[in-house]
């Protein structure tokens, strides 16, 4: 049994994450297509349709989280999507293709795209756990005004820390390329 505050905060956070990710991909469609091709996982004729489909799926999930319609389906689908991303990154890490861009740039971050790294896979696994958390039964406590303040505070903090950690992973990649290896 978990407190209903937790799923609410997670839903709001994921709504923001997915809408931002979809926006990021839609605002640079050609770029995302090139990144997807560079992952070398899809046959050429599928790259373009999938590149169009991904942001649509993300947008749907984002709206699913915020609307609260079929919360179980949204949570499961999000976990599957995040797992797919993690798998795609892991395959390329195993292949040793670490210099391809991850294409997981977050709406708030600017500048260079991120190179692949195991930290990004770890981050995705953490996100999967968070996405599945709302499936746990809640205590059914009614949320008051004050609880919503806590929700907003936690989501804001989470977004800032997420963006900050993303930037640190990016910086680390930049330092590694400086060293030449």
């Amino acid at each position, binding site marked *: 049994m978990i407190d209903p505050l937790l799923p609410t905060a997670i839903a709001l956070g994921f709504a923001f994450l997915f809408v931002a990710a979809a926006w990021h991909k839609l605002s640079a469609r050609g770029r995302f297509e090139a990144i997807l091709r560079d992952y070398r996982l899809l046959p050429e004729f599928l790259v373009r349709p999938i590149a169009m489909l991904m942001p649509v799926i993300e947008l749907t999930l984002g709206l699913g989280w915020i609307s609260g319609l079929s919360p179980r389906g949204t949570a499961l689908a999000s976990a599957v999507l995040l797992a797919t991303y993690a798998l795609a990154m892991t395959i390329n890490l195993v292949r040793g293709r670490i*210099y*391809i861009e991850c294409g997981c740039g977050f709406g708030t971050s600017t*500048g*260079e795209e991120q190179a692949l790294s195991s930290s990004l896979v770890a981050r995705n696994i953490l996100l999967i756990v968070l996405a599945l958390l709302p499936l746990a039964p809640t205590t059914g406590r009614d949320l008051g005004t004050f609880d919503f*303040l*806590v929700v907003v*505070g936690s989501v*804001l*903090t989470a977004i*800032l*820390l997420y*963006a*900050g*950690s993303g*930037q*640190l992973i*990016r*910086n680390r990649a*930049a*330092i590694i390329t400086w060293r*030449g290896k």
Partner: protein
Amino acid sequence: MEGTMLISYLILWALVIFLSLLVFALARQVGVLHERVAPAGALMPTNGPKVGEMTDVMSVSDLRGDAVAIGGADSAGLATLILFISPTCPVCKSLVPVARSLVSYEGRRMRLVFASDGDKIDQHVAYVSDLDIKDYPYLVSQALGLAYAVSKLPFAVLIGSDGTLRSKGLVNSREHLESMVESMDSGVASLQDYVEKNMPDFDESIREKAS
């Protein structure tokens, strides 16, 4: 008591959000610093042939097996830009279109030659068709890379129409490539070279200011 707890709670929240913002801003600043201090011109190694020296004529075979002469004075009066690339180098891929556009912009005074090494010919053939550079000579030769002391890719070498080495260096961006053409036109190998020739007391004046 209730009121005190509430106030303390709200203040703690405000501090947590402020701290997160601070951490993000710090990380961002470090990132911006990394972008700013990246090298601005083509990074020129000190080993290998020197800029201004006459290059030796080398006959190198391209992917089709035709011999291409590299170095020495060009009979057509063209300068030669050799871009050393490799299928395994990710930055090269983005630099190839840049080199093509630069050479087409430079009109009729420059020809573009790609060079690589390695035994896997089919890999090179696939690379060439992937990058759509069939119209340019694509040399596969380890000797050429050794002759110009190519250590890191993408590496560019610019040979003047008279056969002298005009510029060379590790190139990562359009600016780096343009700096090489600029160096050929101005006859100045690098900023350090310019300072040495034209402002002999530059170092001293800086030292004086520092002391």
